[in-house]
């Protein structure tokens, strides 16, 4: 059943270009939304066997016949699956209206579906090399999606993204090759077992470095972040949302965390490097965001900063830190996608992304303004919205781990975050209405609907967060907390 997560979007992606010839808009819209809704329901349903027992490995079936595909589903992957499905559902709804003026909608949905299939595959795989394949699959689709508008900026951004990403993939693959050369296998179990018996900490250190550079580039950690502020703003708004909210986390943070915590085992050296990278990312991202005039570019830099928090939380490696990191990952998926969708709505209505040309849009686009305010407050860590709790958990975890300096810096970073989101809100939505925007209208129905959905989720997650933590963050964190035991358990399969 888990195989459906990969094969359904992939099959639909194959069919869509053909179906697109029959009906240019209606059929692609309907099918893509239906597929996303199906995945969302599926990810909720899949939680059932998981809550009953620990992680499972499931063999895929193809029309009743067993295939040699083993999918790993545990708390962590389920958590990621749910996040992916949720955001992609909202984004697809948004695309119904937004992508109309780009043309080639069927092609667009097909690429989006391939990207989602790639991410789902990555999350479900239990093998280093599979991680690489699905990473690339999602990445290739994302290059095309970034360049989808085919303007000069889009192409330039996509090209740089591709070239840097190719280098990152090469680093990852090289590291896999070296590990393969040492342990003779690439599945999590074999690798964990092999590294446990071999005493090769320096080579593992070099491999960790290569992984860190490779996945760090996918996750846009400083100093590997340089492609992100170009690529994310250039993409169409729903894709920006998808990339910032999910892709960098799945192909960067998820893969990195899975490998470091469950396969290599977290060492103090790695903790130090991860937390320092996290804090540097927080500051570089936040300070760079402060000076931006392009609303989407500001959001892109902010993603770098927020990913820093996630990595900081996960890098601590304590149970509370992991919960904080994962919770922030989920929250960031919610509010960053919402912010990008807001920016898209504004751009579509006014035709500009420059903050200094906006102003007073709250009067003509009340829904966009309200949802954007919710997201901004949330991301800046204002109680009682969800972003506050996750940052609080991370900071508490830092204090518990006796990393006081980092805790202080994390709080300081959050102050800067609040600063630039206030700037954003003031320039875009408050103040006097610019006369040019007198005739501007609120975003169309589906766009508004998906923004409201995400904003409600932000608020609700903030209010019921203890429930959220106990029900499905705890299982995910437990998986990571077990360390390499998780991987060793799966040797028999």
């Amino acid at each position, binding site marked *: 059943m888990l195989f459906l997560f*990969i*094969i359904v979007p*992939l099959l639909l*992606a*194959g069919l869509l*270009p053909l179906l697109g010839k029959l009906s240019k808009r209606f059929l692609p819209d309907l099918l893509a939304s239906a597929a996303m809704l199906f995945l969302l329901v599926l990810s909720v349903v899949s939680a059932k066997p998981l809550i009953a027992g620990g992680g499972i490995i499931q063999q895929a079936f193809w029309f009743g016949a067993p*295939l*040699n*595909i*083993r999918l790993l589903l545990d708390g962590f992957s389920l958590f990621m699956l749910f996040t992916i499905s949720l955001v992609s559902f909202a984004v697809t709804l948004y695309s119904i209206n937004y992508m109309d*003026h*780009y*043309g*080639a909608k069927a*092609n*667009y949905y*097909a*690429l989006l579906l*391939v*990207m989602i*299939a*790639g991410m789902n*595959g990555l999350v479900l*795989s239990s*093998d280093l*090399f*599979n991680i690489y*394949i*699905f990473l*690339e*699959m999602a990445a*290739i*689709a994302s*290059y*095309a*999606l970034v*360049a*989808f*508008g*085919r*303007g*000069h*900026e*889009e192409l330039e951004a996509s090209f740089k993204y591709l070239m840097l990403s190719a280098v990152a993939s090469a680093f990852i693959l090289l590291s896999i090759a070296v590990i393969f*050369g*040492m*342990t*003779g*296998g690439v599945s999590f179990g074999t690798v964990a077992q*092999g590294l446990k*018996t*071999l*005493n*090769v900490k*320096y*080579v593992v250190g*070099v491999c960790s470095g290569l992984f860190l550079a490779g996945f760090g580039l996918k996750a846009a950690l400083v100093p590997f972040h340089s492609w992100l502020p170009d690529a994310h703003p250039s993409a169409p708004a729903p894709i920006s949302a998808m990339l910032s909210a999910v892709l960098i986390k799945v192909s960067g943070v998820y893969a990195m965390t899975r490998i470091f915590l469950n396969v290599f085992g977290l060492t103090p050296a790695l903790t130090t490097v991860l937390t320092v990278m996290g804090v540097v990312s927080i500051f570089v991202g936040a300070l760079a965001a402060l000076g931006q005039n392009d609303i989407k570019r500001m959001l892109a830099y902010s993603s770098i900063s927020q990913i820093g928090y996630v990595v900081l939380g996960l890098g601590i490696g304590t149970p509370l830190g992991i919960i904080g990191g994962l919770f922030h990952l989920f929250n960031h998926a919610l509010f960053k996608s919402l912010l990008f969708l807001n920016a898209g709505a504004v751009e579509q209505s006014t*035709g500009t992304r420059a903050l200094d040309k906006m102003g007073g849009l709250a009067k003509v686009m009340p829904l966009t303004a309200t949802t954007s305010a919710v997201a901004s407050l949330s991301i800046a860590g204002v109680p009682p919205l969800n972003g506050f709790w996750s940052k609080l958990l991370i900071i508490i975890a830092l204090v518990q781990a006796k990393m006081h300096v980092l805790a202080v810096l994390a709080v300081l970073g959050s102050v800067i975050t609040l600063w630039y989101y206030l700037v954003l809100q003031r320039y875009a939505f408050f103040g006097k209405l610019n006369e040019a925007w007198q005739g501007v209208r609120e975003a169309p129905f589906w766009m508004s609907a998906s923004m409201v959905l995400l904003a409600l989720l932000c608020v609700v997650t903030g209010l019921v967060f203890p429930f959220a933590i106990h029900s499905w963050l705890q299982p995910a964190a437990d998986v990571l907390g077990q360390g390499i035991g998780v991987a060793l358990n799966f040797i028999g399969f």
Partner: protein
Amino acid sequence: MHLFLLIGLVAFSIMAVLSRDLLKSAISLAVASIFLALVFFHLGAVYAGVFELSVVAGLITVLFITAIALTRNDGEVAESKRHRIVFPLFFLALAVLDILVMRKLLGQIPAIQGAGSGTFSQVLWNQRTFDLVGQVGAIFAGVLAVLALFRHDSPKGDSHE
């Protein structure tokens, strides 16, 4: 023999980088691919060798040449002349560092014998089935990407430049 093949591979790679003519670069790359395929044959990796020959030396080279033919390069991108001096220095430093690191790091790794495996097709179909799904996905992505980039409606975004 093995060493010579490797040296040939590196030499043609260097040519591909340093050559001033793009066409020559592409062809040097193809030759380097052929050397790599020979290395694979020498190591016994026949299937990988065949694939390297047909796909990389063949298909990718064709792709490159097509792209070079399709692009117009007004005023020829001027590569800096310093490469003739800088590159040898870089290469020397790289080689020295390489030898040092490999001796020190990899020389100490104890061996684990990998589980012996069956025939190639068995491995590909029975162990790496999931990879095939990924391959299909990647091909989809590539095809869709090219379709998206070369679609016929007018490009958006020219307006706001």
